[in-house]
C-alpha cells in the first residue's frame, strides 16, 4: 500500500526519509528523491495549483503501477501545493526494495510519471511578474523510457 500525501504544509525531508527507512528496514535498499524550489533568475516565490481529488487518485495510480512493475517493499509520494519559496522542498518520493535496481528504477519511474501525469501546475513570481511554468517536451518524452 503506497503512502500518498498531498499537503500545503512544509515537510521535513530528512525526517520523512528516516521514518520511511525505519519502517522498511527489512528491505535492503532505500532510494529517495527530493525536488527543491530553485531560486534562479530572481525567482521570488512559487505557487502550486492542483486538482483536489484527482491528484491523490493520480499519485496512487502511479505508485501502484510502480509496485506492480518492480518488487517493492514500500513506496511514498509526498507533494506540496500552495505558496513556496526558493530553497524549500516541493515534493519527494521514496522506494524500498530488497534489490537496489528495483528501488532506483521505481523511484525514477514515479518521478517521470508524476511530472507529466499528476495534476499540478507551477506558477513563478519574479519582480517582472508572474508566469505559469511551461511543460517541457523532454518530460513527456521521458515516459517512453518505460
Amino acid at each position: 500500500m503506497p503512502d500518498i500525501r498531498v499537503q500545503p504544509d512544509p515537510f521535513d525531508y530528512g525526517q520523512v526519509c528516516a521514518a520511511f527507512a525505519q519502517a522498511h528496514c527489512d528491505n535492503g535498499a532505500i532510494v529517495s528523491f527530493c525536488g527543491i524550489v530553485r531560486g534562479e533568475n530572481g525567482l521570488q516565490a512559487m505557487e502550486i495549483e492542483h486538482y483536489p481529488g484527482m491528484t491523490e487518485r493520480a499519485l496512487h495510480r502511479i505508485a501502484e503501477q510502480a509496485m506492480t512493475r518492480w518488487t517493492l517493499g514500500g513506496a511514498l509520494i509526498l507533494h506540496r501545493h500552495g505558496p513556496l519559496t526558493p530553497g524549500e522542498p516541493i515534493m519527494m518520493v521514496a522506494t524500498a526494495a530488497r534489490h537496489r535496481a528495483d528501488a532506483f528504477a521505481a523511484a525514477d519511474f514515479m518521478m517521470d510519471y508524476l511530472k507529466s501525469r499528476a495534476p499540478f501546475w507551477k506558477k513563478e513570481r519574479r519582480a517582472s511578474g508572474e508566469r505559469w511554468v511551461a511543460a517541457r517536451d523532454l518530460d513527456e518524452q521521458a515516459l517512453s523510457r518505460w
Partner: protein
Amino acid sequence: MRVTVLYFAWLRERIGHAQDQVETDAATVTELVDQLRARDDRHALAFADLTAIRVAIDQDLADLDAPITGAREIAFFPPMTGG
C-alpha cells in the same frame, strides 16, 4: 445532461472563474469544447489552441475525442508541471 466543468491554471485565469455548470448534449469532449467556446469571448480565447490543453473525465486523463456520456465532472487544464 448536466456536467460540472472545471478549469485550472491559466485556463482558469483566462476564463475568470474555476467552474461552470453546463447543460449539454455533447457526445465528446470536442463537442463540449465547441459549446463552451460559444459562451463568451473569454471561453473562446481560453480554448483557442487545443494542442495546449489536456482534459480529465471524472478525474481520469482522457483524449479530446473521448466520449463524455454519463460523465459528471470534466476538467480542462494545461500540460502538468508537478515534481
